[in-house]
């Protein structure tokens, strides 16, 4: 799990945080993954969170045409050039 995703989970309200950590632990075990497959909503919640982290990874995002560093840098440059807050 990336630092950003760890921070995202850590900042959640405690019921969601505890639930997500439990789901992550269950998903790491082969039997757990099979169990989760029978609970589509839980699997989707877990899958969504993991996908958020996975596709935030810069190399994977870049392959899909997204460069967050460049977007943020362009924003900074424009703000400075135009004297925005």
């Amino acid at each position, binding site marked *: 799990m*990336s630092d*950003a*995703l760890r*921070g*995202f*989970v*850590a*900042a*959640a*309200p405690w019921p*969601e945080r505890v639930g997500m950590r439990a789901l992550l632990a269950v998903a790491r075990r082969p039997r757990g993954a099979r169990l989760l497959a029978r609970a*589509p*909503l839980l*699997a*989707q919640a877990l*899958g*969504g*969170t993991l*996908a*958020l*982290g*996975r*596709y*935030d990874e810069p190399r*994977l*995002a870049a392959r*899909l*045409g*997204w460069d*967050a*560093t460049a*977007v*943020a840098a*362009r*924003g*900074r440059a*424009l*703000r400075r050039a*135009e004297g*925005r*807050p």
Partner: protein
Amino acid sequence: MKERALEVDFCVVGAGGGGAVVAAELAEAGARVALLEQGPGHDPDGFTARPPEMLAKLYRDAGQTTTIGSPPILLPLGRGVGGTTLVNSGTCFRTPEHVLARWRAEFGLELEGAAIEACFERVERSLSVGEVTPELAGENAAVARRGAERLGWSHGYLRRNARGCVGSGVCVFGCPTSAKQHTGITYVPRAVRAGAELITGADVRELSVVRSRVRGVVARLKGGERLKVRAGETILACGTIHTPLLLAHSGVAGASGQLGRNLSLHPATAVLALMGEQVNMARGVPQSFYVDEFAQEGIMFETVAGPPSYAAMALPLQGAEHARAMARYPHLAQLGLMVSDSSRGSVHALGRRPVIRYTLGEADLERVRRGLARIEQLLRAAGASEVYLPLPRGVAPGTARRGDLRLMAFHPLGTARADARARHGVVDGDLAVHGLRGLHLADGSVVPSSLGVNPQITIMALATRLAFHLLGRPVPASPKLASTTP
């Protein structure tokens, strides 16, 4: 414990859409104003355009606040200077006239006509509101437009509070160019320039109440210092979820039995689709186009979009199917559905945290079903080869049950609703808390019904009206606005 005291004319709690507006208007009129904000001020240099990091930084509970009920609904709320205006999509609608007419008939609120018109104009001018151009809207909007045109459905480009926007595609994760004119870079600086004292990290714990008159607030500052603000008038603008909690904790405003009730929130979801052409949804303004063909039924479509990580989280597929669809991310388009809800929820405190209850009623469930079916129709008409509905495999929109839905909501309203009659509402038509002196509310909590459109302009217009009411002056007329965002 160290204690700090402050004496002002007006103490405003919350620097979001409502509080920042009131604070600026009052301070610019020469009043002594304290503006207390629980969260931090955010430096846009720290906006990285990376969703997980920004969710943790800019949102309360990392955007994972969730309702209890069927189905559970994710309710992301902004935190810090600018409040939710910092992390919304910037969409600007005036309160629909039929909603204002309903408020007059049902709640005795006189908000129609020239006076509220002047408030809308003043807010829109302050926020540089204008219509998005097709070029800036990008290909995701072009897909929605093509579908709507082929079906002959009413549609248009949205009006937004943006200036110098280059379509970074991350409005809801912190605008890196400061193009979005949220209150943290518009009204709050105006308030501060006019002499208001902005105090961030101020966690307001209770109101000071003496014989049915509110005299100010008591807050805990970062580092544990206690802050006591003595004020002639106090204005709460902590947001729809937190304002009723502070009132209840202070033991006020509960006489009508309406405090914390009547929560509406515009349940929402989104549909992704695979297109033949490159869409690159995050290039352009994510929320730039609407389809209001079914607005009379309480169904509204607006484009939504974001970087790959955002789309990956929203994509309702698993495993290899998910990976295959994400490999074609440049070809994915997305359209959101928002329902003007008649269901009502509630909020109360458990310790110091909100417990939000909301169950989707049958009429709203039917709206979601119809909305999903029509979005699929629109995306197919636009040429989508695959449509990814946010439903379990094999479930069609028309047969979806509550538990099948993946809903989010962005517009909580109504938990301290306005009603001219003290037995039916928490505040009166001037947003003064019934039965108390010295206390007004200025956030979404006062909005007495679902709007059917994004609420920030309604909240800011009501806040403007309140500020001038407190000053005892009419709202000045504003010059007309330009029609297009520069």
